[in-house]
């Protein structure tokens, strides 16, 4: 079955809309086969996965809460990846930001500190993430060490550092020596947007980030230099853009956004510092960035879709008693379908007659 992909020079808006639709149809078919094979009623399963979460205000809020950190981190990573810098350590930068931001919350705990605490925590969170993100950047610029390895290794180091703090010096003295900090004071906590539910102000930060990122990437010289540095480094150098500054810039930015996501989660839905503060947001955000084609609006949509697969998966475990592994297989299938459908929109498939080397 020799075939050939032909790049579509112009992708129409219609085709862009068709991609998710195609992915959905493909997933429905593959998913239906899978569910039947596993002895589940496919229609019921799809309804629990996709319809029920989207038809209930509570789950809609939860969807946004879950997508929030993916969005923030994913946008930062988009800058990195556009510049061809492979930061895969956002999970560590998330933790570093959460730690530095929480330091202030713990330092002001029980004092008369005013409403400046939370904004200052956010700044520190971004700073912590940026500093942690700059380590691989410095190692790359100064020594030529690959940022892929260093950023990943630093994830484990950051997690162990957090572990040390919450089991040691930062432990709640009234907490029976259990590993968690005190609960943050109200001035150090993200305000909720509604009375009901968990939707918090941090989500607004994500939306601002989308708008700003879209503006920077689309309309400014900075965005252009990042893009050019990534796709044509020589041309970028010729144009006078400094490769090192791009490296520092994108790592600091993506680290800062990941750190911001970290402190928002800790000061928001979690409420204190504990050994485990992320269900792998930093890694899932890589998928969000890629599925969103490194575009802020794309990342926004991708984050929501990913959040839906998690929440739908939990619902399927609860109402259908589906094992967690089935939901994981389904999530993998869905991602694969989206990726495949995306290609089918960007390329036209031509069948070839006779043998041709592929």
């Amino acid at each position, binding site marked *: 079955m020799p075939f050939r*992909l032909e790049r579509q020079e112009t992708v129409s808006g219609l085709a862009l809309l068709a991609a998710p639709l195609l992915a959905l149809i493909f997933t429905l078919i593959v998913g239906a086969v899978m569910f039947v094979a596993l002895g589940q009623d496919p229609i019921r399963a799809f309804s629990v996965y996709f319809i029920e979460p989207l038809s209930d205000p509570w789950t809609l809020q939860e969807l946004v809460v879950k997508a929030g950190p993916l969005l923030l981190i994913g946008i930062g990573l988009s800058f990195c990846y556009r510049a061809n810098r492979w930061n895969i350590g956002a999970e560590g930068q998330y933790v570093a930001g959460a730690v530095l931001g929480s330091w202030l919350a713990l330092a002001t705990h029980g004092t008369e500190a005013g409403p400046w605490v939370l904004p200052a925590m956010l700044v520190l969170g971004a700073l912590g993430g940026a500093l942690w993100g700059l380590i691989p950047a410095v190692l790359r610029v100064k020594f030529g060490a690959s940022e892929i390895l260093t950023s990943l290794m630093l994830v484990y*180091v950051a997690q162990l550092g957090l572990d040390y703090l919450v089991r040691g010096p930062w432990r709640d003295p009234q907490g029976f020596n259990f590993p968690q900090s005190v609960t943050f004071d109200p001035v150090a906590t993200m305000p909720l947007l509604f009375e009901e539910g968990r939707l918090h102000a941090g989500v607004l930060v994500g939306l601002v980030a989308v708008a700003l990122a879209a503006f920077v990437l689309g309309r400014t010289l900075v965005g252009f230099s990042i893009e050019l540095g990534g796709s044509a480094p020589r041309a970028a150098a010729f144009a006078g853009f400094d490769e090192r500054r791009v490296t520092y810039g994108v790592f600091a930015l993506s680290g800062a956004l990941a750190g911001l996501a970290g402190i928002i989660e800790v000061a928001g839905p979690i409420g204190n510092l504990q050994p485990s503060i992320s269900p792998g947001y930093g890694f899932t955000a890589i*998928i969000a960035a890629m599925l969103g084609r490194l575009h802020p609006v794309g990342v926004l949509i991708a984050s929501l879709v990913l959040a839906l697969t998690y929440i739908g998966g939990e619902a399927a475990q609860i109402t259908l008693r589906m094992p967690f*592994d089935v939901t994981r297989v389904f999530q993998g299938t869905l991602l694969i379908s989206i*990726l495949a459908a995306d290609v089918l929109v960007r390329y036209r498939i031509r069948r070839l007659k006779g043998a041709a080397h592929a």
Partner: protein
Amino acid sequence: MPDVTILAAVLASIVAAATPLLLAALGELVAERAGTLNLGVEGMMIVGAAVGYATAYGSGSLILGTLAAVIAGTLLSLVFAGLAIWLAANQVASGLATTILGLGLAGLVGANYVGTRLDAAPELHIPGLSDLPLVGPVVFGQDAFVYASLILLAFVAWGLSRTRAGLVLRAVGESHGAAHALGHPVRRIRTLAVMFGGACAGLAGAHLSLAYTPFWASDMTAGRGWIALALVVFSAWKPLWLLAGAYLFGAVSILQLHVQGFGLGIPAQLLSALPYLATIAALVVISALKRGQGAPASLGVPFVPDR
């Protein structure tokens, strides 16, 4: 001489601990030299562990189990290859999706085997040699997977640098456009390289579930696939450096446990972080000494023939 015995035991543990990392990383190295970055290693590894265990348990044959693990890893790698090579989808996202799929599939396959066990793959004693002091237990008292990893390493090192096939594979990884113009089937070669990567990851999984800790438990690879990926970068895509990296990582992981046993009162978190810090430090030193070694030029870039 108790000191020699301890030293031999420690060295033997290091070699064993490094082997699953080495196996998985070796396969990924070949895939990456051909220009494909497959982040699905963890998924292929755990599928290998689950299918390998299930088969060995059902058939009573470790050899069949190992074979099944290799096949399972290869099959899952084909999912990635189909997406990333033939449909030219984004490689990073495709690899991550493959890992999620693999973790789920492995859990489903293994669900019925929780709480069962196998007899471990035996250590292969070589009469005479295994009894040598120090060298004996470290080099000649290991299981078959350890020897397989070293043979595969030699094979890959030789194949990449000394054979025509290796030359073509590297050409595809460096410049797929030029390789295509020369008439090489770029996508087919990449697919084969990815399949080799899947087979090695499956073998690494089998080492865990058939020899190292011969039972099945969900998520038993515990992130070793990611370490393997990092080691490929560490090695600067050179097989011998990979050997050094895997053994270095294994050494620090094992030694930190021994240091604790002596009761020095160092925070356990710091000791646990040592393997990662040591790897970073070693990479920085290596990179500073010889600059310019880089990734295959076409790594991660999908190939779409124009005409």
